């Protein structure tokens, strides 16, 4: 809300009562004051200021890491650390199918490790690796780094050049490398084996080798065949090419094995030894040399203590996603870490500090904490591990011999995913992470895949990256120009709020912007669909098209094809483990599933946004009759992602579970209360009797979900839906039904997506969803977001994406946001206007023509004189404001001046005030009357206004003060004085009463009768008894002439007279009565029942041919086709509002030519208002800044007072 200081010049400073305070109170005031001021400030402060104020230091990730390290150091006490955060996941899952361990294996367990879980874990590792190596290696070999390293070797993928540099000292062992190298030649000869597998799963392959007694190098050979250069002359190759080959990039596992091997040599003894042991079975002639190596290692081991470096065995429960080399940082000093040593990861599960939650530490069994993973890994790994669906295992690949803080350690990290997600019966969607931030567009699983360089084998057709790079072709015509013209409206709107009278008009403005935005299609090439026989009315061709369009959308456009097509927002991944089926990940919401997300799960439904009066209701009824159905499909439910990630996703799952217990319902129609009756009527009249059952669930009635689900159509209001949701959330009567179709009428009602009403609508479970609205965007693009949420349109119902790609660009004036939204809406929205044409170029809707004419009235001389006087006086005042440079601070006053002038054009009496009787014209008399009434008053209970108070009020009136109405807090438009001398808007006062004739004074609670009210005299001195001195103004004469001529024709045409001022109707009543023209009135004073009665009466009666209608009171969707003549008595600031008024008459059902007469008084402010209207249109089109708008407004006002 933009600040609007302008009209606050009024009563804001009243309340003197609260200023003189006793000292003690002032103290308290100060403290609250401080509170309040900080609160207010927080809104205006920038983020930085806020942080400063709250004394928060923003740390970069690195800083944070360092701080964490410092903090964590005291805890780095070896095993204790490990025990503190055992890798529960790893353990529990692992031990599940751990068979009995043989005794001799146990015997090998060093005592120090027989400690709780870490022992189990170790044991399990031991066991598994020994099982694996059974046959080839004796258990005794296991003592250290033996056969298992065969596998270890393969689990390493990559090296980075950094390591090379660091490992320089190790190069001293190159002589050994050379020797080993020679061996490598031999496996090369067994090339054919290279074809064995392409499976990325290293272990599986490994096993093959082991079983067949083949050298594990067979894979190396694959590499070699691919790159023959690497062949026999290994020596040279290794030496020279190494640095080049080990690119920092992680390569696909297949390739990387070779790199690994090479790197191992360089790296040092352990690697070399691995190699040797691997080779052992092949040829014993190599044995002698490796032996030496082994000795060296043994020596080193002695120094470093017991190293845990068993391999991670294949676990039937866990599928390998992939493995890669991660460069981690050490956080400890002086600890030892040898190559291939297993590291254990510890994850913080609590979000106890903002950044700390992403920290993944790793430790070894013997030394305790070593270091941590880089933040980018942590961020994707932590949520995944916390979901307990993913586990992470790692081992060291390369580490500096002497660790100090912040050194790089290379780890080979393997990621596993639990098999349960692949085997679950209901392959519903899951997300591995709890979405931590609604604005986040990063999703752990996707980031993991990205970091692991796993590419989707089926790419999402629609990906965030494409949107980022804006490369996606959006099937758009080049309408950037048009889109750009939309932008200023936002800017402009901020300024506009200063117009008190215009807030309402602004809404109407959007009507034209919608057309611009979504482009009311000029022509639709849609097939027509014959309505079902149960529909009792004929559909127009364009309505049949809508029926076809809606039916097709409900079916899903290519139902069969869609079932085989991947949902455009999902990508398919295949993880390393071939046992695993594909994983599908929603590239936008981060949701994942193993069930093929078909395009059929896309939103079924759309937005029927036909302009007012095209018969959206009838089209919907036709749809309901044409496609009856019950319940919703399960999978649809689950593919939904909503704005509010956390809760809704969860609840979706919940309702998924409950679906079976839900009653299968038909169609639920949610509409504003005012239209409830109309819907029921139309449903009943347009459908064949007995063909559908209708149930209105409105308040009170306590029905059960089962009962309401039995009906074909259930009608309710937004209020009832919201209330039900508020009370019972997902268990409300509406949410316990699985609907076939949910229709939101006037769907812009839920335009604020954060409101409970909107949330209530979003969480309804339904097969098809429809929004009916003539104004899909009322004020802001965000309105549309809410509708997309309801429709479950992916990915746009994800706030993060919407905000990033549409909302923000739009607000920043980037036309691409607008283009994108057009592309999104194109398939989802059907919008025709009355101007839309059919295939043959004929207008889709042939309504009787409208005949719009402006009737220019000429003021009589007396009228003109009066107007002139008023104008001059107003102009003086205005010029004063201009001279003082205070125009912009006096909008309210100026608008008041204009208001009087405009009213004067209608009838001078409006300005003179309708003093109810001559006797009050004298202000002192007025004062006397107050005092008299009260002294005469028999009811002593009544509060007697004091003499001083009455004096004050009268003096105020005399000075022409227009005080603020205590109810609407605006300047009283048509102020009345109560007998208790309180002043307020007539309309406000009357609407606060429970009965139309009497009620309490809102100020003093005195009982008042309508007849006691005195129209408040305004500052001017003209006092008239309206009845007695009745005189027609030129406008009134013009109107009466028209009405009488219509009456004379005897055609039975009815007329509607629109005005902004109910007081003008009060005046109009006089001549209408005198001339015997029967009329009805429809204004804000009527309660709902009375309104209905008036409208019914007007359409049926033959006596009352005129309806006086206040435009403010006109509700949504009123159908006034009984009339065919429209009289607009006073021009609006905004022509769109007048347009809306005409729409109520000129719509389907109208059989006659609609004659619209606009009354404009020549040479008055009204004429100039028309110019302002034209100017306003150009302002919408042009890009103006706030400042420009301000100046423009000033110009505008000057224009009016010219």
């Amino acid at each position, binding site marked *: 809300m933009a600040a609007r200081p302008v009209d606050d010049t009024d009563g804001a400073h009243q309340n003197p009562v609260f200023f003189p305070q006793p000292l003690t*109170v002032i103290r308290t005031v100060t403290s609250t004051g401080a509170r309040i001021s900080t609160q207010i400030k927080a809104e205006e402060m920038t983020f930085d200021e806020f942080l400063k104020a709250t004394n928060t230091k923003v740390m970069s990730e690195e800083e944070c890491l360092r701080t964490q390290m410092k903090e964590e150091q005291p805890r780095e006490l070896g095993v204790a650390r490990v025990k503190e955060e055992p890798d529960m996941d790893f353990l529990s899952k692992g031990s599940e199918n751990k068979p009995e361990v043989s005794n001799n294996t146990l015997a090998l367990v060093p005592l120090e490790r027989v400690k709780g879980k870490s022992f189990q874990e170790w044991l399990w590792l031991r066991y598994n690796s020994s099982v694996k190596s059974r046959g080839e290696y004796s258990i005794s070999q296991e003592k250290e780094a033996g056969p298992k390293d065969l596998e270890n070797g393969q689990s390493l993928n990559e090296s980075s050049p950094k390591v090379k540099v660091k490992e320089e000292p190790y190069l001293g062992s190159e002589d050994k490398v050379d020797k080993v190298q020679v061996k490598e030649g031999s496996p090369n000869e067994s090339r054919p084996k290279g074809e064995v597998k392409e499976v990325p799963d290293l272990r599986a392959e490994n096993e093959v080798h082991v079983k067949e007694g083949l050298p594990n190098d067979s894979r190396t050979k694959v590499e070699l065949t691919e790159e023959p250069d690497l062949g026999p002359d290994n020596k040279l190759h290794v030496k020279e090419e190494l640095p080049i080959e080990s690119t920092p990039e992680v390569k696909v596992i297949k390739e990387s094995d070779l790199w690994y091997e090479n790197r191992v040599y360089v790296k040092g003894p352990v690697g070399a030894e691995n190699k040797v042991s691997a080779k052992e079975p092949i040829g014993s002639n190599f044995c002698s040399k490796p032996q030496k190596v082994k000795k060296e290692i043994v020596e080193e081991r002695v120094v470093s203590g017991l190293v845990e470096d068993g391999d991670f065995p294949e676990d039937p429960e866990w599928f390998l996603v992939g493995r890669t080399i991660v460069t981690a940082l050490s956080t400890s000093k002086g600890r030892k870490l040898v190559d291939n040593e297993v590291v254990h990861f510890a994850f913080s599960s609590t979000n106890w500090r903002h950044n700390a939650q992403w920290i993944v530490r790793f430790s070894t069994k013997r030394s305790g904490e070593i270091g941590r993973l880089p933040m980018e890994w942590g961020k994707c790994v932590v949520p995944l591990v916390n979901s307990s669906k993913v586990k992470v295992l790692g081992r060291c690949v390369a580490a500096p011999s002497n660790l100090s803080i912040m050194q790089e350690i290379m780890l080979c990290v393997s990621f596993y995913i639990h098999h349960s997600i692949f085997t679950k019966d209901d392959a519903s969607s899951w997300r591995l992470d709890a979405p931590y931030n609604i604005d986040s567009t990063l999703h752990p699983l996707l980031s993991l895949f990205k970091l692991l360089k796993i590419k989707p084998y089926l790419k999402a057709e629609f990906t965030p990256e494409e949107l980022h790079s804006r490369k996606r072709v959006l099937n758009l015509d080049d309408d950037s120009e048009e889109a750009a013209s939309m932008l200023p409206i936002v800017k402009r709107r901020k300024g506009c709020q200063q117009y008190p009278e215009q807030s309402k008009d602004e809404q109407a403005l959007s009507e034209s912007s919608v057309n611009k935005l979504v482009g009311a299609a000029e022509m639709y090439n849609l097939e027509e669909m014959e309505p079902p026989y149960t529909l009792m009315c004929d559909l127009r061709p364009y309505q049949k098209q809508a029926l076809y369009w809606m039916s097709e959308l409900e079916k899903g456009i290519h139902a069969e094809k869609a079932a085989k097509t991947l949902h455009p927002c999902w990508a398919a991944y295949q993880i390393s483990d071939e046992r695993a089926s594909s994983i599908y990940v929603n590239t936008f919401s981060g949701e994942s599933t193993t069930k093929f997300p078909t395009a059929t799960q896309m939103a079924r439904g759309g937005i029927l946004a036909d302009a007012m009066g095209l018969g959206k209701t009838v089209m919907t009824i036709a749809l309901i009759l044409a496609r009856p159905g019950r319940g919703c499909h399960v999978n649809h439910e689950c593919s939904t992602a909503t704005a509010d990630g956390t809760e809704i996703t969860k609840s979706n799952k919940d309702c998924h579970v409950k679906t079976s217990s839900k009653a299968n319902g038909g169609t639920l129609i949610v509409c504003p209360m005012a239209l409830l009756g109309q819907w029921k009527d139309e449903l009943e009249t347009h459908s064949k009797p007995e063909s559908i059952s209708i149930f209105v669930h409105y308040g009170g009635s306590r029905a059960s979900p089962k009962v309401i689900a039995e009906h074909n159509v259930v009608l309710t209001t937004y209020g009832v839906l919201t209330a039900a949701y508020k009370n019972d959330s997902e268990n409300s009567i509406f949410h316990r039904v699985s609907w076939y179709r949910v229709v939101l009428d006037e769907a812009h009602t839920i335009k*604020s997506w954060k409101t409970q009403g909107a949330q209530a609508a979003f969480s309804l479970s339904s097969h098809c969803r429809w929004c009916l609205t003539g104004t899909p965007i009322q004020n802001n693009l965000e309105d549309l977001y809410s509708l997309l949420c309801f429709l479950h349109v992916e990915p746009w119902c994800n706030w993060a994406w919407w905000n990033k790609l549409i909302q923000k660009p739009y607000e920043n004036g980037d036309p691409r946001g607008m283009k994108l939204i057009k592309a999104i809406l194109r398939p989802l929205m059907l919008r025709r206007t009355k101007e839309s044409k059919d295939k043959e170029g004929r207008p889709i809707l042939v309504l009787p023509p409208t005949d719009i004419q402006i009737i220019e009235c000429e003021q009589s001389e007396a009228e003109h004189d009066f107007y002139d006087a008023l104008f001059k006086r107003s102009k003086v005042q205005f010029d004063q404001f201009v001279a003082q440079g205070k125009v912009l601070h006096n909008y309210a006053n100026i608008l008041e001046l204009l208001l009087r002038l405009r009213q004067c054009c209608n009838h001078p009496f409006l300005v003179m005030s309708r003093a109810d009787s001559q006797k009050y014209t004298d202000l002192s008399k007025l004062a006397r009357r107050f005092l008299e009434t009260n002294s005469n008053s028999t009811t002593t209970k009544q509060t007697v206004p004091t003499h001083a108070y009455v004096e004050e009020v009268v003096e105020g009136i005399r000075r022409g003060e227009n005080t603020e109405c205590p*109810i609407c807090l605006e300047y009283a438009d048509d102020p009345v004085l109560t007998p208790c001398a309180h002043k307020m808007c007539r309309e406000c006062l009357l*609407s606060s009463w429970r009965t139309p004739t009497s009620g309490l004074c*809102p*100020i003093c609670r005195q009982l008042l009768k309508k007849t006691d009210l005195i129209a408040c005299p305004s500052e001017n001195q003209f006092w008239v008894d309206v009845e007695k001195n009745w005189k027609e103004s030129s406008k009134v004469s013009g109107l009466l002439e028209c009405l009488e001529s219509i009456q004379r024709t005897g055609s039975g045409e009815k007329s509607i007279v629109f005005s902004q001022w109910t007081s003008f109707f009060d005046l109009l009543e006089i001549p209408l009565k005198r001339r015997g023209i029967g009329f009805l009135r429809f204004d804000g004073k009527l309660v709902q029942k009375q309104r209905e009665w008036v409208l019914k009466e007007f359409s049926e009666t033959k006596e009352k041919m005129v309806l006086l209608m206040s435009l403010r009171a006109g509700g949504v969707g009123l159908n006034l086709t009984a009339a065919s003549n429209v009289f607009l008595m006073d021009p609006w600031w905004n022509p769109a509002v007048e347009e809306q008024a005409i729409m109520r008459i000129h719509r389907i059902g109208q059989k006659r030519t609609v004659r619209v007469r606009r009354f404009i008084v020549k040479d008055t402010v009204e004429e100039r208002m028309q110019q302002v209207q034209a100017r306003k249109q150009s302002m919408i089109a042009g890009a103006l800044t706030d400042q420009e708008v301000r100046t423009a407004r000033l110009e505008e006002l000057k224009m009016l007072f010219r």
Partner: protein
Amino acid sequence: MANSNLPRRIIKETQRLLSEPAPGISASPSEDNMRYFNVMILGPAQSPYEGGVFKLELFLSEEYPMAAPKVRFLTKIYHPNIDKLGRICLDILKDKWSPALQIRTVLLSIQALLSAPNPDDPLSENIAKHWKTNETEAVETAKEWTRLYATGA
């Protein structure tokens, strides 16, 4: 902008509440729902609630200002006219509501109610009884509760 259909009156009242807060009272609308206010009232001086900061929530229904706002204490308070759910027994919030009253006046009335508990029109029978039978003790309890629940963080 999400609250753009907010009646002008509510907007005006909010602006005034923020620009000229009533002494000892703070009320600020929630960001996502401009009809929902977070309110804090300081315990009035010379009352058992002195020194306490009481949190309340205030909601303006669709009918407002033709219907009273809905107000409730969030902070526990020992008061004969306030029940354990924080509901307040105050005529202007019920039948004596008048559209001429505002958020500010309502909150001031509540503040006044803290200064002058009315055990004759109780909402919480027990507390009222306590108040009537042994006022000093009841006041002590009120002070204690204030210290326990309405001070500090």
